[in-house]
């Protein structure tokens, strides 16, 4: 069982040429575990990606600390898999080699890592594309591949930074179902950043709403919808009620951002 503790984490970006320093994150306290699927919902620029990058070790908190199973996070590592919004497959590696990248870095022999990669290729429905270059894949396929690449490393926690943000609506819905299917089967702690309210409810077992900059956790809402979930749940009264509530929460924050601009 994995526990991620975010302890009084703040982040202030230093001043630049006449601009005041930017406070991206107010002290954030958070504890995540239980193989929860936690979605972080917030208006753009609220610091939700910054928080995720700090957990990943790609950015450092100005104060406070992040603990993963009691160990302080000092930098990026294989125990926290990350999927980015931009397409980050290595263009010089094939689908199979991309998925096996983390295993190769750890020195897993080729036969074994190919077996693992092929299992994930099967899971994400990319059989037949093992030897394709990323360039030859659609955006949705690339992101599926990126999720598989992160999962193939068997991380303690999976971090996703608006992974479906650049995809068209139909593809996005299919990707959500696929990701949820993997999570329902494999049970893993997931931290998923999005600004899409429906996505946050549909995927999450817990939705955290962040306030406008400087970001802090404004609401922590448990989503008790039953699993396995299908797309049909999106029209159920419970789902709609949750959506209404979150729309109000987010709207208040978006208005604040608009007033500042």
């Amino acid at each position: 069982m994995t526990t991620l503790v975010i302890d009084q984490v703040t982040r202030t970006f230093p001043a630049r040429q006449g601009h005041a320093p930017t406070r991206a994150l107010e002290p954030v306290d958070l504890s995540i575990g239980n193989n929860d699927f936690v979605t972080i919902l917030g208006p753009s620029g609220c610091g939700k990606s910054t928080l995720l990058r700090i957990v990943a070790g790609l950015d450092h908190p100005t104060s406070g600390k992040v603990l993963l199973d009691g160990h302080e996070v000092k930098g990026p590592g294989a125990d926290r898999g990350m999927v980015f919004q931009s397409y980050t497959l290595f263009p010089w590696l094939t689908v199979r080699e991309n998925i096996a990248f983390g295993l190769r870095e750890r020195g897993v022999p080729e036969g074994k890592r190919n077996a693992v990669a092929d299992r994930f290729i099967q899971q994400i429905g990319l059989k037949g594309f093992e030897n394709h270059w990323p360039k030859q894949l659609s955006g949705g396929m690339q992101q599926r591949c990126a999720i598989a690449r992160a999962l193939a490393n068997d991380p303690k926690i999976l971090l996703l930074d608006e992974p479906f943000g650049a995809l068209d609506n139909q593809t996005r819905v299919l990707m959500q179902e696929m990701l949820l299917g993997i999570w329902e089967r494999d049970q893993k702690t997931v931290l998923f950043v999005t600004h899409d309210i429906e996505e946050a409810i549909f995927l999450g077992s817990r939705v955290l709403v962040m306030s406008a900059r400087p970001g802090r956790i404004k609401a922590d809402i448990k989503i008790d919808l039953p699993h396995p979930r299908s797309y049909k749940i999106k029209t159920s009264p419970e789902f709609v009620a949750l959506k209404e509530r979150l729309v109000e929460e987010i709207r208040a924050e978006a208005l604040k951002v608009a007033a500042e601009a």
Partner: protein
Amino acid sequence: MLFVAAWSLATFGGYVSKTFLADPLTMLREGWDLLVKFGFLYDIGMTVWRVVGGFVLAAAIAVPLGLLMGAYKPIEAFLEPFVSFARYLPASAFIPLLILWAGIGELQKLLIIFIGSVFQIILMITVTVGNTRRDLVEAAYTLGASDRGIIGRVLLPSAAPDIAEILRLVLGWAWTYVIVAELIGSSSGIGHMITDSQALLNTGQIIFGIIVIGLIGLISDFLFKAFNAWLFPWKLA
């Protein structure tokens, strides 16, 4: 085509004295003589070997150094001022100095190519590697890559096609340096043949030499391109 036509008109038409510019047919005949009677093939071989030798030497040192400078800012900050300065030193100005140091043997020729190429390659590769997509590097870190893994399995493959392109470009410049090096204090090579022919007022041979240089450049360029396409199929897919 137009070039050859204008050349023929000027020479066959008698507008230009044969002493200064041979006509195309004379040029071809002189060229044939060069090849069969005067062992010009040996000269060509010497020149190619010098270019390739000096260039490979420069690349062997410049590629790793450029990679390190692109990967580590402190190394770049430390070396960049010197390399930038050295890049502007004309290789041909080193010829007298190098003759003093290394004589007029092969080493001196190789060193001129080396000096002319190495700093250019270093700087261009540093910039290319420094421009590697940040998100790819971050993705590799979150997959557990070490700093060495990042350099060997992200920065290098990511920059490799551009590095190959840089090498192709600089190889072209190396051809200029080798001829200059051979014009002075040399006993073989295409440049040496050209100076010899100048003493004999044989413009046909000079022009033939220049054309041979152009052809070899064209061939090496073509080979480089074909090699790159074979090496980096992911770029073309």
